[in-house]
């Protein structure tokens, strides 16, 4: 089962790529439905990100371990059964551990089943790599997703409610921008964050060009 390790740092590389360079929300622009729908507070974003990370990690480990046993013709159905199972487990666990958060997230926990990030990682990665790499990839992608949701949720909560993780930040006189915790606020904030990502990427490219030119001169 254990493939020869070509590069000891490969697992680290697979892990780190999902956090930033291939961030599922900000770079791949996947999983937009939960990213927009449940990120009106940082806590909701964290719970959704955590549940997704759990489902992605467990599914990736199991599917990677069974990748030689699953026939190609029924692989997608098998992935969906596995994913749906872990989603249901996560749903029950969250309902038992944090009923208030569970009520806020509502149907979106069940809808993790159809989150394309999860099925996408199984098809593109876990079904072709060792358990170790699949787990690293899942933690990276799931962590990147959770990071994106907490960032979105935190920014929207600060502007829309004047609090972060439920703690009031500005005192009584702050007039919250209610629009930010309403559905349009999700689009506005996501747009703003994507803009920053694009700026950073462009700035880096320019910097690289400049350095190249300077080196050439």
């Amino acid at each position, binding site marked *: 089962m254990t493939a020869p390790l070509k590069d000891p740092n490969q697992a680290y590389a697979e892990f780190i790529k999902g956090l930033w360079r291939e961030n599922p929300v900000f770079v791949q622009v996947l999983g937009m439905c939960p990213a927009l729908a449940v990120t009106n507070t940082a806590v909701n974003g964290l719970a959704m990100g955590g549940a997704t990370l759990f489902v992605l990690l467990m599914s990736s480990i199991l599917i990677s371990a069974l990748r030689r046993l*699953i*026939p190609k013709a029924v692989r997608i159905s098998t992935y969906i059964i*596995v994913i749906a*199972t872990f989603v249901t487990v996560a749903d029950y666990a969250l309902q038992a551990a944090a009923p208030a958060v569970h009520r806020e997230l509502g149907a979106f926990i069940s809808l993790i089943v159809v989150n394309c990030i999860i099925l996408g990682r199984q098809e593109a990665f876990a079904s072709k790599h060792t358990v170790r790499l699949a787990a690293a990839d899942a933690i990276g992608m799931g962590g990147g997703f959770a990071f994106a949701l907490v960032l979105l949720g935190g920014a929207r909560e600060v502007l*829309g409610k004047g609090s972060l993780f439920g703690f009031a930040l500005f005192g009584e006189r702050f007039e919250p921008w209610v629009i930010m915790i309403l559905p349009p606020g999700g689009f506005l904030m996501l747009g703003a964050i994507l803009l920053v990502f694009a700026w950073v990427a462009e700035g880096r490219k320019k910097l690289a060009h400049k350095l190249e030119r300077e080196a050439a001169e």
Partner: protein
Amino acid sequence: MSVRLPETPRLVLTLAAAGLFSGLAIVGAYRLTLPTIQANQAEALRRAVFEVLPGAERMERLVWSGDGEAGRLVPAEGTTGAEPSVYGGFTADGRFVGYAVPAAGAGFQDTIRLLYGYDPERDRIVGMEVLESRETPGLGDRIYKDETFVGRFRDLAVAPRVELVKEEPAAPNQVDAITGATISSRAVVDIVNAGNQEWLARLEASPVPPLEEEGREGDVPTETGGPIPGGRQ
């Protein structure tokens, strides 16, 4: 791949194994979490009942037994959780306080589910709590965040019916609508009136049920189909 089964049985076998694993895992998780989930729901319900019935410290679920309006309230023990029910509230020493009536109806965005306390002796509503709603944050959600609006339901006459008015209430059966949330305010009043329509005649006709002893104060429905516990469907 060393195993060489014929193709079709192999596919069937794979999916059957996946289904078996899935079923076992789900049943396991369900059994493991069910007690906690039920305890959470019971706790949330109790808190709501005690909130809308000031002074209540014990409660009992009551169902309407009988055909149509000819019947009486009986303790819910031994019945399934599906039929409409109210909750009788009692003080710690067993004195009857009032009924907590669950009601639901269309709000601005989605169904609003609420619970209100009714004191049959004074024929007044003595408290109201919204259990579940998706009203607009900052506007419609003031039906449970606005102290003035919620406060109107702490001493509200129910006869002939609860009325929504646009100005300061002049009669004991009037509630003033929240500015900017008229639809949500109207929804709450309509839901309360519908609950009264369904229950008041019955509650007045029925003798106050005795509180059953043996410390069954935590008696709440365990079926998820019950009228209150649990959030979403």
